[in-house]
């Protein structure tokens, strides 16, 4: 910076006190304009009202100086942000994760429902059997359990299982069932007591007709 301008500033702030030097500086037109401009700004700054800290801050400082209030150590101050960060994590991250999980769940449900296999399973039930739709009020009505048709009354034969040997075998099995009533877990009975034990096809162990 030009020495004249620097000296003008020092005079303006009272850090140079040689009045004769100032007079000689102000004989220069440019320096005189500079002095006037800087003086105007300085005048405004000089009349700014000064601010003070809040009284409660002063009270805390004086209490700390008197030893009434423990001063936070430097290590305590270093720990404080970590606590703040974890609190912020709880405050911000948990709701965000919850929302993200809900969105993922919704996307997953939407994806499964849009799969061809699942969609085709649901559609016929709605489209082809509208009469089977249960009215809402029936949901609150007691429906007695329907009697289950005994399996023995149904014809166990398959539609294509109608050849003569199979039909014959089926009749023989059916004729044995009502008298024998044997099943897994029941007590063993001698073979002689079984129906047809007198036929030629069955004979006692150790007996030899020949």
């Amino acid at each position, binding site marked *: 910076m030009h020495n004249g301008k620097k000296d003008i500033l020092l005079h303006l702030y009272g850090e140079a006190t040689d009045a004769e030097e100032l007079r000689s500086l102000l004989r220069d037109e440019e320096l005189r304009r500079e002095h006037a401009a800087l003086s105007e700004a300085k005048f405004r700054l000089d009349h700014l009202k000064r601010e003070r800290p809040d009284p409660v801050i002063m009270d805390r400082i004086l209490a700390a*100086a008197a030893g009434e209030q423990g001063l936070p150590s430097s290590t305590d101050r270093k720990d404080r942000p970590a606590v703040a960060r974890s609190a912020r994590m709880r405050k911000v991250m948990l709701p965000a994760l919850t929302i993200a999980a809900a969105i993922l769940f919704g996307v997953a449900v939407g994806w499964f429902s849009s799969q061809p296999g699942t969609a085709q399973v649901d559609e016929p039930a709605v489209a082809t059997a509208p009469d089977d739709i249960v009215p809402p009020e029936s949901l609150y009505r007691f429906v007695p359990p329907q009697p289950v048709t005994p399996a023995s009354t149904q014809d166990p034969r398959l539609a294509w299982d109608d050849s003569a040997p199979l039909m014959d075998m089926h009749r023989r099995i059916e004729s044995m069932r009502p008298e024998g009533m044997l099943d897994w877990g029941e007590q063993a009975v001698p073979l002689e007591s079984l129906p047809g034990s007198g036929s030629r096809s069955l004979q006692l162990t150790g007996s030899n007709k020949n």
Partner: protein
Amino acid sequence: MHPADEVLVARYVEEADQAAFRTLVDRHQERVFGYLRGMVKDRDVANDLFQETFFRVIRALNKERGSYTRQGKFLGWVLRIARNAALDHLRARKKWQDLGNGDDGDESAWWDRLPDDGPSALESVQDMEEADLLKACIDRLPPEQREVVLLRHESDLTFREIADMTDCSINTALGRMRYALINLRRMMEEAKRLEHIPASD
């Protein structure tokens, strides 16, 4: 007659004289707080930093940290602590960029470094009192110019002390002050000019 800072410091440290410490804080509170308020531009933050500064002072005087050597410059020492606290705060918010010592004298690009956070000081000029307007203009100064203004006008440091504190030459400190005054005057004139422009509605 008011006791010197060094006498008060000695009374507090050696005799646990709380009244002496209270006198010290009362004596310098405006110089320290004004500087902090101007640096961080926020009264609440300035209150926090002011408290932190004097907590550090108390620790140092109680020998937990021995940076005070009683060289007869209590205010300068306290302001150095306050400056560190303020710069820590500003650096954490990326609102301070350390400059070189500025001896190249290049202050011409200061407009490029104008802080750009918050509304322009000139936008709401019609609602401002002159003092508020001037404070808003100070807030709009580049940080290095603003700091010199604050240290000179709020803290009453000399340019030599400012140069020592901000680690630059006295010529640089004077240059920053000169540009700050020129820019403040220009901004105030602009604000006054806008004040006379009717609202466009």
